[in-house]
């Protein structure tokens, strides 16, 4: 087990190093930040002045070396645009993002797992068809269309829900649902398939032959097994959400989260913010994957992490 965790951590370091390097050079090749920061109407001399001021001078190699050196000192740099520590910028954004993420994951689980189970059990009745039909639709709408539709219906026309900010729980309703619809749809379908697989297993016949009531058969014997498969996908979904999921939703609902920060810093070529962001997100994603893998090991006694790593 310990060996497994250490192994994963090592792999994680490698991944992070590669990502940091790749992002560093990709950003440099994608254009000089000066042209995004202070571009308009700069003569060559002025341009050079600012390049030095922002520390964008020197070859890419030099810059990378400086970047690594300051990383070693635990210094992630100043935002080129805001001129304050990137860590501080991130600290402001983490909580709102986390709220959204956790909200979306919870809503996804709360809705999709029961829906998937129901769809599997009632696969031949209208209930199953209705659930799967809804899932198909949920999977087919671009989420910003959904988000703006929500906004128009519930805020603009009905005036029931606030449209911007995140101060009360009412603020969560629309962003969380708009964000999770796609995932709910995906997870419902996945849960159904996992459940169908399990439902045809022989140990369920054994459980029934023991005289267990259907409730126990489904929720104890079947669900525990389905959970294992569900868990493996859930990890990817959470990771996906954490990595990219919410920039669109954050923009529509003026939700100051990481997703929006990453995209806007990339658009404005705020390298230090971007680099830190990618680093942080990558770490988060890898950690989530690690946690899910550990959970997987706990949920499935056949997987002994330490032995198979």
């Amino acid at each position, binding site marked *: 087990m310990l060996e497994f965790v250490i192994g994963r951590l090592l792999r994680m370091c490698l991944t992070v190093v590669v990502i940091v390097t790749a992002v560093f050079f990709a950003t440099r090749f994608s254009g000089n930040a000066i042209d995004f920061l202070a571009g308009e109407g700069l003569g060559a001399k002025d341009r050079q002045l600012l390049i030095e001021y922002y520390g964008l001078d020197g070859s890419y190699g030099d810059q990378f070396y400086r970047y690594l050196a300051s990383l070693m000192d635990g210094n992630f740099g100043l935002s080129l645009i805001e001129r304050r520590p990137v860590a501080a910028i991130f600290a402001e954004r983490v909580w709102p993002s986390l709220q959204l993420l956790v909200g979306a994951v919870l809503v996804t689980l709360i809705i999709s797992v029961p829906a998937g189970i129901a769809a599997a059990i009632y696969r031949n009745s209208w209930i199953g068809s209705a659930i799967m039909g809804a899932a198909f639709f949920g999977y087919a709408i671009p989420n910003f269309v959904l988000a703006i539709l929500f906004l128009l219906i519930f805020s603009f026309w009905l005036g029931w829900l606030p449209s911007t900010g995140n101060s009360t729980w009412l603020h969560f309703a629309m962003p969380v649902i708009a964000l999770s619809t796609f995932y709910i749809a995906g997870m419902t379908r996945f849960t159904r398939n996992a459940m169908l697989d399990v439902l045809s297993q022989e140990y369920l016949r*054994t459980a029934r*032959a023991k005289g267990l009531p259907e409730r126990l058969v489904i929720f104890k014997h079947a669900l525990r097994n389905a959970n294992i498969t569900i868990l493996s996908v859930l990890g990817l979904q959470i990771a996906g959400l954490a990595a990219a999921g919410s920039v669109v939703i954050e923009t529509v609902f003026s939700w100051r989260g990481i997703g929006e920060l990453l995209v806007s810093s990339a658009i404005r070529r705020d390298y230090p913010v971007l680099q830190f962001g990618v680093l942080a997100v990558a770490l988060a994603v890898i950690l989530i994957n690690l946690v899910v893998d550990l959970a997987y090991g706990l949920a499935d*006694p056949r997987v002994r992490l330490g032995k198979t790593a």
Partner: protein
Amino acid sequence: MTDRTSTPLLSVENLSVSFDTVNGPRAAVQDLSFDIFAGETLAIVGESGSGKSVTALSILKLIEREGGRIDNGRIAFRRDEDSVLDLAVSSEAQLQRIRGNSISMIFQEPMSALNPVLTIGDQICETLVRHRRLSANEALREARDLLDRVRLSDPDRRLLQYPHELSGGMRQRVMIAMALACSPRLLIADEPTTALDVTIQAGILDLIRELQQKSGTAVIFITHDMGVVAEMADRVVVMRHGEMVETAETVALFRQPRAPYTRELLNAVPKLGSGAPVYAAAKSMTGMPDSDTHAGPAEETVLEVKNLVTRFPVRKGLLRRLVARVHAVEDVSFILRAGETLGLVGESGSGKSTIGRSVLKLVEPESGHILFGGKDLVPLTRRHMRPIRRDLQMIFQDPYASLNPRMSVAELVTEPLFIHTALSHRERRDRAAELLARVRLPADSIDRYPHQFSGGQRQRICIARALSSKPKIIVADEAVSALDVSVQAEVIDLMQELQRQDGIAYLFISHDIAVIEKMSHRVAVLDQGRIVEIGTTDAVLQHPRHDYTRQLLDAVPIADPRCRRVRTSVQQIERKNPIRPIGHKPSPLAYQSIGTDHRVLTA
């Protein structure tokens, strides 16, 4: 012990069960009637697909879950002296009270019948808590006792283990413990030993019998193995195509089968002790005697294996450290002559397949020599091996899995030709047609795909493929194990016929001693990677010298109720494993020769 005068415990009357398929309803069981009395053992036999399992599931009314429907019939179960319940029309709630309580069931495949994510203890206790209303602690204590009763070692620890941590035999005993938890009045055992080794099977059968004697439970024993029937049953129901063809007392049935199908079934069963095949003069393809091979197989050695050792590493941890090794094949030597069949028997894990695969260099042996036509194959690289494969072919255990589902029969059968010869597409196709004719497959099978064939037909395709390059040696690894007895007999006949025609030498691997006896001229008995006894079939099986051989033979159920053996103690139920620590030096093997060609391991 059986009281046939009183009312039956369970009486099935005119049961008909059908499945809805895309082509309309399909009857799986038709108009089936039988009775079973308290304390009695009733065997239901019949080939695969005859409706045995459907009947069993219908009794517990679990068949609807599988998509079936009870169309007709009564399943009268005597709950106590004066109340009889028709299970076919009972409510789900009533059934839930009966299932696992008064009627319980043991399923065929012990791994898939246990829930992989729940502990053994949990799965046993469930039944106790549900039907006997025990508290969690009481249930746990009771479960421990049950495990003890089925003679599972270290029951306290077992309670906390998961199914995958137990061997097949152990799991099957857990199933039995579970089934016995509430002292059922009727136990249905659906092929409870099919997946197990003979020695383990013998242990399990003993156990069931013993427990039944103690508690007077009635048992419905479902199997397709006539040997097991002979050993276990008081009465037999023979089924075919969902209908009962005959029912009788066991002894009477074996002595005087009335229905033709029963006779057929009994005849198809390979019987141990019926004698080994005799060498037949090899014939050429033209059917004319061939002077070269006339001298008989006893002279020309096609394969000589000397001191073969094959080991597999067991690795653990991040760095894949070598922690132990599986000594799958230890110092094995034998020779194989042209036109001869050498049978390899032994239990699961004894190294049979590994020998076969080592000989073909599908796994790399660690040391030893494999002399084929005088040439040592061991040092050859994969590339240098390839041309030689033309003469060394293999037939695999599972006929379906060993055929690529996406290739047509023509392509499959001629794959060795494609690889080893420069024949044109046309010529290969002609050869394929020829080969299919030889294994007696219809000519139109040539463009079909594996999933369109039955098990026996698929195995014929495999045989045709092995024959296509006219090999000198065919390694047949459990080539008939997956087949029904009647089909099995046909395939064995076919293989023998081909051997007579072409003078092929078989290395015939099986765990079924009766099949080995029927097929092999000589036999090697394997135990934990070592040959413990090797010699002519008659010598080894009629006059076994080694203890292990005896034990093995003793465990084989004999399809004759008159020879029912009485075992005093439950035999080995655990599987042995050949995993040894690194650096383990096996002691050198010494053999004692007994007569010509019969050697026995002494040390």
